[in-house]
């Protein structure tokens, strides 16, 4: 009898604890995700309650949409360069900070002031993308007032009469944005890799040292394989960030929701937002959302697959 009462009370407890989180999550996350798939097959404008079913029309139109395809290409470029640059720099610095100060018989240690470097490097991580957008908007200003132009003019590398139009130069704009992402991310991944490096037993390094391994060799043969899991995770995270890019592009570049000059910095997210909020093509925008989802999933799977290696236990 009391057994039944207890189990009934337990069911009530479980349900009571789950009902609110589940309800919120279903309403604001899952249901909109599901709806997106549905809307992507319609010509819904977003304004009127009526819309027609158009099958795959939105998707075939996407394949012919030059702006969207250009944006897709930019996302793929970022996808390649953002993780590669960020991870390489972070690994390099992490190795310096943690193993760089090593010396002969004294064992392996980080450089002096490694704590200081970690504090400084990590800081951009707590800044919002909106702050980054304003900050780098000012750094990349296309007159003498921009930090970058100011320096280059002072060094005599740039003619003061014709400063570099960083964010208005079709060939430069995407790379300028890329550097902001790298600037923002390196410190975080440095700390992430440092944490992983510190869990590597010191005697492994000392053994490598005794065997006469140089610094580069130690890094490639010892550190990197043992860090592989974190590198892999980082690649996926950075890849997802590179698929997004909305905040920086929409706020730092010209055009409605950014993307300028002449679509040279366009990414999928900005095209989506413009179609949704500006052109009133909600169904079409939903189709872009679905494409982004599929690409993100493929990306995660490919990254995890391609970088799969045998796990090293220590």
């Amino acid at each position: 009898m009391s057994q039944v009462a207890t189990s009934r009370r337990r069911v009530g407890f479980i349900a009571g604890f789950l009902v609110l989180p589940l309800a919120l999550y279903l309403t604001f996350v899952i249901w909109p995700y599901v709806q997106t798939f549905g809307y992507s097959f319609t010509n819904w404008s977003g304004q009127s309650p009526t819309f027609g079913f158009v099958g795959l029309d939105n998707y075939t139109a996407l394949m012919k949409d030059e702006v969207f395809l250009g944006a897709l290409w930019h996302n793929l470029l970022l996808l390649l360069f953002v993780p590669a640059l960020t991870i390489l720099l972070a690994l390099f610095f992490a190795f310096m900070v943690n193993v760089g100060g090593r010396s002969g018989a004294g064992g392996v240690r980080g450089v002096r002031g490694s704590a200081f470097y970690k504090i400084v490097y990590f800081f951009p991580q707590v800044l919002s993308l909106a702050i980054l957008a304003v900050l780098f908007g000012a750094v990349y200003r296309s007159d003498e007032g921009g930090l970058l132009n100011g320096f280059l003019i002072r060094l005599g590398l740039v003619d003061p009469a014709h400063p570099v139009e960083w964010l208005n130069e079709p060939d430069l704009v995407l790379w300028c944005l890329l550097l902001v992402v790298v600037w923002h991310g390196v410190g975080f991944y440095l700390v992430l890799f440092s944490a992983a490096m510190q869990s590597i037993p010191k005697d492994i390094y000392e053994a490598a040292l005794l065997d006469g391994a140089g610094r580069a060799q130690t890094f490639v043969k010892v550190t990197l394989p043992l860090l592989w899991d974190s590198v892999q995770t980082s690649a996926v995270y950075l890849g997802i960030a590179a698929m997004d890019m909305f905040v920086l592009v929409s706020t730092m570049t010209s055009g409605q929701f950014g993307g300028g000059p002449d679509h040279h910095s366009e990414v999928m997210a900005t095209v989506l937002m413009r179609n949704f909020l500006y052109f009133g093509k909600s169904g079409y925008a939903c189709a872009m959302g679905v494409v982004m989802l599929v690409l993100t999933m493929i990306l995660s799977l490919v990254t995890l697959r391609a970088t799969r290696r045998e796990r090293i236990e220590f």
Partner: protein
Amino acid sequence: MTTVIKAPGEAAAERSGGGGRRTGEGQNRRSDGMALNVFSHSFLAVWAILIVLPLFWLMLGSFKTDSQIGGSALGWPSNWHLDAFARAWDKGIGDYFANTMIVMVFSVPLTMLLGSMAAYVLARYPFRGNRLIYYFFVSGAMFPVFLALVPLFFMVKRLDMLNSYQGLVLVYVAYSMPFTVFFMHSFFRTLPTAVHEAAVIDGASDTRIFFQVMLPMAKPGLISVGIFNVLGQWNQYILPSVLMQPQSGSDPERYLLTQGLIQLQQQMGYETDLPVLFAGVTIAIIPMVVVYLSFQRQIQAGLTSATLK
């Protein structure tokens, strides 16, 4: 530079070196170590400067005049007045700040509470459909927010919660759920069952055990996810920029800080009052600097563990 100074361990190790051959080798290695140290430090220092310089330059800019900013990037401010800060405050930075705070005062505790509740039940009570609900929660972390944006807007609109604090709070909580549940789930699993059993024998109810025993024990996990959520929600831009727009002329402006800064940037582009923009950003950065410097250890550890889990 301090790099040339020998570390104590280094010197001691050298002294302890025995035979001639070993000493020679030690000497060799030592100079090698020093060269490497200089090498490491120069690279590290360059990056440190690249981080600090733009921020410092921007903060200096809030003391300059507009023509001074436009004229040359590298000048030192001619006056040290705070009027740009006052003007930035008048432009609404203070209100945007307050709006962000109001939303987060509700959204962060609610995220932590609801996320922990769901995670706890899923981690420690086997029942039919447990795994299914767990994966259901966690799968949300895989999808880009953009995928949901269009229907989400209309969902919130239908609930008549566009441009309202409570609407944004609920959306923030919902979107923070996947990660919070995922992290807290693995945390609750590691807690010992013995404590739980002891509490049951003492006659505590399930709810009481959760609030008085398990939740306090999960404090380290809560701090990690808490930092993750605070930073994530504080820096959120896309959700508020879609959901927190005045819907009519009479609607109050409830921009959050991130939105407000971007709006200020656009305004100042026309009005050419850059010191105000720089001051606005400085106002937004300074609390982050203070919080970061006070808690940098916890923030670094929290974000790192939250990401690696």
